[in-house]
């Protein structure tokens, strides 16, 4: 099967509310639809935020459980985020699926995390370039020349 060397995704339109006027407004955020698999079992597809500030991939544990992962059997890691808040995660080798392309990688899963995050090690490093187009609200993933597995 042939595929484009660039994967493009429109940003997801989330919502905010002005604290003074109470008016809602739209926020464009780089969330892309992915699913994960472990051995032969897959999660549902879910929106994950492409986050250049995240060192590694971090997913809510529930999506790992959908893929049949025994979360707490993974290597335990301590994860530090904003406000010096520390949470516990568990690392596992998984596949991340974008459209019909599977990427072998690793992710941390936490019972204390609600936003799925795609970080630099384990996601950004799978691509030649990751482009945030803030004018057209689009994310572009430029594939490396050595292609990944295709389902």
């Amino acid at each position, binding site marked *: 099967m042939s595929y484009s060397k660039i994967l493009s995704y429109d940003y*997801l*339109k*989330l*919502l*905010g*509310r002005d*604290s003074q006027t109470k*008016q*809602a*407004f*739209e*926020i464009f*955020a780089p*969330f892309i*639809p992915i699913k994960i698999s472990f051995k032969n079992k897959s999660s*549902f*597809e*879910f*929106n994950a*935020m492409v*986050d250049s*500030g*995240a060192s590694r991939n971090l997913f*809510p544990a*529930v*999506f790992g459980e*959908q893929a049949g992962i025994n979360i707490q059997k993974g290597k335990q890691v301590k*994860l530090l*985020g*904003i*406000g010096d*808040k520390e*949470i516990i995660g568990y690392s596992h080798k998984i596949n991340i699926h974008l459209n019909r392309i599977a990427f072998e990688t690793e992710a941390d899963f936490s019972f*204390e*995390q*609600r*936003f799925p*995050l795609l970080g630099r090690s384990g996601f950004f490093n799978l691509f030649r370039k990751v482009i945030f187009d803030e004018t057209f609200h689009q994310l572009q993933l430029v594939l490396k020349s050595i292609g990944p597995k295709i389902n």
Partner: protein
Amino acid sequence: MRKISNPLINYENKWVALSSDRKKVLAAADSVKQLEKKARKLKKKVVFTWVPPFDRVLAPYVV
């Protein structure tokens, strides 16, 4: 005053199952496990998304 037509407007702080083009909400629930049950009945390709509270700034590590 401009009215927002965003499909997520009625789902603040909920988990939603979006259509595969991410333009329509097909189901909503308070947790992923509850949403899973609803999504299986739909028998359609869906994309799970958490809709953060609208009065919070998007910061990934907020639990």
